[in-house]
């Protein structure tokens, strides 16, 4: 079987100790919560931290509390199975609960966490492989090599942001809280991500993501749709999150404001701004939905590094965005 490399395992008693341990470990350190991303990556030698700090048991990371201005503050250590079944989320943040329910398998959702999903390592068919496999391609830019095999002339890595909750949180305008020995800061989830397969987050390595704050449910609606090969297990090959404020009832309400965010088509969640501009201030007709789909299709640039063909992954952006908009109603 695949075996883990040797490493030092630390289990802090509290948040402060966790943060100190991480600072002490320096670049050789790594936090682990559910471990559903890190342990397999370590078995494949994609990551080889010398010190692993296990924060899974810290109760402070697993709470659900009222957030500022009527929002909701979720501990980053909440299990995904808790997120998908949490009563407040089901009542007011259906897109969040649904997004969590589409991740991986029920068993892995019992281990994987909210924060872990947002910080999921970017994925690529040239990278998510064993050491032996990667050696056979002479490794890649993201780990142990120089070239990005997805686009060999490219100066950057094209690994894919494959979190289901990332586009949802960006669309909702949620915030994350990051904490280190230097203190605490909160940033919009949109600012957490960077469009680079290797340096895909703006979080400093020693920072711990402690909480996610959702905005107050004051009349907006949101949906999430996931395209993947199978009804379980698979990472998205396209995630579509739509948030909107609609005015007036009826079958074709007016779009006051809208955010459309695509997941799994780049190294960061992608805002489909042209599609949003088409919709804003206009009635949400079937024709408008189709036009928005076409506008979102343009900036989506999937690369050949996930399941299914890149042409198809781009093509399905049109119907998926239109269908997500239709689901708002």
């Amino acid at each position: 079987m695949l075996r883990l490399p040797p490493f030092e395992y630390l289990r802090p008693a509290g948040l402060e100790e966790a943060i100190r341990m991480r600072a002490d470990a320096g670049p050789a350190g790594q936090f682990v919560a559910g471990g559903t991303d890190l342990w397999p990556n370590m078995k494949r030698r994609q990551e080889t931290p010398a010190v692993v700090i296990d924060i899974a048991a810290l109760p402070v990371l697993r709470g659900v509390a009222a957030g500022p201005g009527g929002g909701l503050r979720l501990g980053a250590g909440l299990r995904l199975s808790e997120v998908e079944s949490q009563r407040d989320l089901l009542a007011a943040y259906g897109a969040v609960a649904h997004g969590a329910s589409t991740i991986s398998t029920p068993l892995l959702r019992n281990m994987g966490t909210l924060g872990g999903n947002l910080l999921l390592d970017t994925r690529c068919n040239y990278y998510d492989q064993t050491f032996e496999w990667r050696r056979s391609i002479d490794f890649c830019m993201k780990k142990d090599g120089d070239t990005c095999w997805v686009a060999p002339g490219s100066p950057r890595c094209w690994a894919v942001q494959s979190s289901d909750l990332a586009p949802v949180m960006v669309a909702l305008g949620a915030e994350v809280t990051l904490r280190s020995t230097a203190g605490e800061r909160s940033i919009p989830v949109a600012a957490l991500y960077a469009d680079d397969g290797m340096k895909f987050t703006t979080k400093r390595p020693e920072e711990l993501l402690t909480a996610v704050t959702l905005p107050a449910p004051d009349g907006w609606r949101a949906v999430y749709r996931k395209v993947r090969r199978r009804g379980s297990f698979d990472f998205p090959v396209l995630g579509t999150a739509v948030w909107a404020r609609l005015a007036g009832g009826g079958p074709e309400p007016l779009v006051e404001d809208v955010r459309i965010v695509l997941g799994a088509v780049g190294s960061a969640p992608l805002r489909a701004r042209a599609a949003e501009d088409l919709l804003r201030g206009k009635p949400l007709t079937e024709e408008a939905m189709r036009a928005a789909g076409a506008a979102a299709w343009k900036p989506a640039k999937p690369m050949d590094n996930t399941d299914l063909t890149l042409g198809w992954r781009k093509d399905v952006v049109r119907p998926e965005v239109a269908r997500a908009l239709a689901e708002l109603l």
Partner: protein
Amino acid sequence: MAPRKPGKVVGTAYLKVDGPDKVTGRTLFADDLALPRMLWCKLLRSPHAHARILAIDTAAAAAMPGVKAVLTGRDLPTPFGILPVSQDEHALCPDRVRFIGDPVAAVAAETEEQALEAAHAIRVDYERLPEIDSVQSALRTPEPLIHDYGDAGNVHKRIHLEFGDTEKGFAEADEIVEQNYFFEGNTHLPLEQHASLAVKTPDGKLCIWSSTQTPHYLHRALTKVLGMPAAHVRVVACPNGGGFGGKSDPFNHEIVVAKLALLTGRPVKIGLTREEVFYCHRGRHPTLMSVKAGVRRDGALTALHFRTQLDGGAYGSYGVASTYYTGALQTVTYRVPRYRFEGLRAFTNKPPCGPKRGHGTPQPRFALEVHMDRIAERLGLDPLEMRLRHLQPANSLTANFLQVGSMGLGKCLEEVRERSGWREKHGKLPRGRGVGLACSSYISGAGLPIYWNALPHSGVQLRLDRSGGVTAFCGATDIGQGSDTVLAGCVADVLGIDPLDVRVVTGDTDLTPVDLGSYSSRVTLMMGNAAVEAAERARALVAGAVAEKLGVPAERIALEDRRVFDLEDPAKGMTFQEACIAAEAKHGTLGTVGSYTPPRSPARFRGAGVGPSPAYSYQACVAEVEVDPETGEVKVPRIWIAHDVGRAINRTTTIGQVEGGVYMGLGEALMEEMAYRGNRGVVHKFPSMLEYKSPTTREMCEVETILVEDPDPNGPFGGKEAGQGPLLPVMPAVANAVFDAVGVRVDEIPVSAPKVLKALQRLAAGQEGRYGPAGLPAADYGEVTRVLPPWEGGDGRDMKKQEVGAGGVRGHIPGGK
């Protein structure tokens, strides 16, 4: 001769003998075994698809902590392979690597981690060679040779057979229908990863426990490579956590741990990773095909011409047989009066292909059944009624001299027509929904063994004693298909006891008589017949002793419900145990044997070894699909499948085999692909269970299974196979249903969303609504062997030999049209 009539066991849903252990986790698979002082083995594999080995330096590895032995190709110089004509593998590559994953060196160490670290410390210098990644590139690149044998350049095998004058057949046709098809390679994906544990016993002999479907052939390979007397090698086949053909070859890792155990004197174990299982492969050959059919207006075939090109991967494996199988069974379902087959297999720098469930027949069956759908469409006929009209008759010879016995395909078609509501659905469902039909057939065991000889294919020994206990010994291997349960059931049925009263000892070359292995759907028929023979002999011993005791003629003795009694006065009798005591007292120590050798095939031409079988199973399948016209995504909510099993020995396990076949077929139909990267050597794209897509429970459809029981004279109690046939019709049924739903043809497996969408986009643009290959690369299939079909006076031999041979050989062919 009519088959034996079932008693109280056969045909019921009796408990699977290994069921309780399996569901409670007590079954010991090879990877569960551990012995004191056991060492762990790791293999170092090639990172290059094609390269010469210039030098190997193992000094650093040998000096590492915990390392007890390091092997390279020099230590195991003798080649091996499953087929006598393809002895082209080495346990460790001596001078050349042929695919990424080919093993080069092995380490035995105290822990698996130490073995891995040491393997990484071995230095190998390679000189890279041009890489061949497809049939097309193999045909284009005759040099350098991947192997120094084969029919031409990198073409491993060429076949060209013609039964009757097909040109004449095409001239008699009202319509000619031609098309090209492609079936992508896919793999077995057993849940159990291969594992082996070898030990040198105190008397200097070798014992190996392994996840193998073919202990007999592993026994042969170990004997050959290690140079040990066969009698000093013991192979124990552990229960397999799924085989599907992927554990049918003798494997390099098995030979390596055996050698390491002999060398170190300590038990040595290996457990392959999932990635390494992908490198063992031996799965479905990627196959390009062209089909030309001549048909009359009523759908009757006048001639059929099939061409197949198989991408074989880096070694021979079963490939020669696989290639013949792509042309063998087209003739057993519908009447084919004239038939021509051209096939070739090329060597490429990929993990070797071999026998996956259906072995070489799913690819041409897909092409043929989609082609039949096309023919019906062209002629304006219902594809089901058209097939029904032109079935190959029971008890007949085909154009290529296959002897068909019982033939329940007509009944299968009628069953699925009624159950699926075919008449109300086909061509009548709203856009996006559709139904498709396909038929198929499979052998119940190959008529000829891999090593041609006059020996039995299966043997069963029975031991009975005063305890009333019965033990059945057989070399057959339970790979989850339920062969242990079939063995217990056949014996129990004849002896009038419960299957759980029978202790089964199987798959152990020291303890059990030879059975050739769990491949070619042979076990139920062959082992079953041997078991019935052994049990009938035991029954005679027991009945004879009881008859003597009761003072009645032996013919009046019945065995039933664990009693042995007088049929005319059932109260007069004794328990089965008392009967065994009486029999042991009369005859001495009790033991009987039974064996089975298939009937000789009437085919005599070169290449006639593949296709003949004692009996053929038949299937008809209707798939219902939902196609998203905007994305091309296909869902299969329901499948109806009727399977002519001759006689179900155990109803539940038979249905289990049918449902398992449908599940695997659905994966092939919709998503499974052994795909490779071309830009970095020929590396497997995603050797993992996450990215090699195979259906989950979410994709599995509802299955309605109908068992059709048309007892075959050659089967035990009339029984035929169930393990492979039911997979075959699923892929074409799904493809045909997609056409019914949205009007496009995907002439490729898998029928994945991107292909369906592409075909839909072409249709919308006014082009042909089709996704599939344009043609086959030009190739030479070698000199043709012509054989006259039975109805044209053929005697099963090459026409040249028939003319040269004794005059007047054109005798009566039974069953000929």
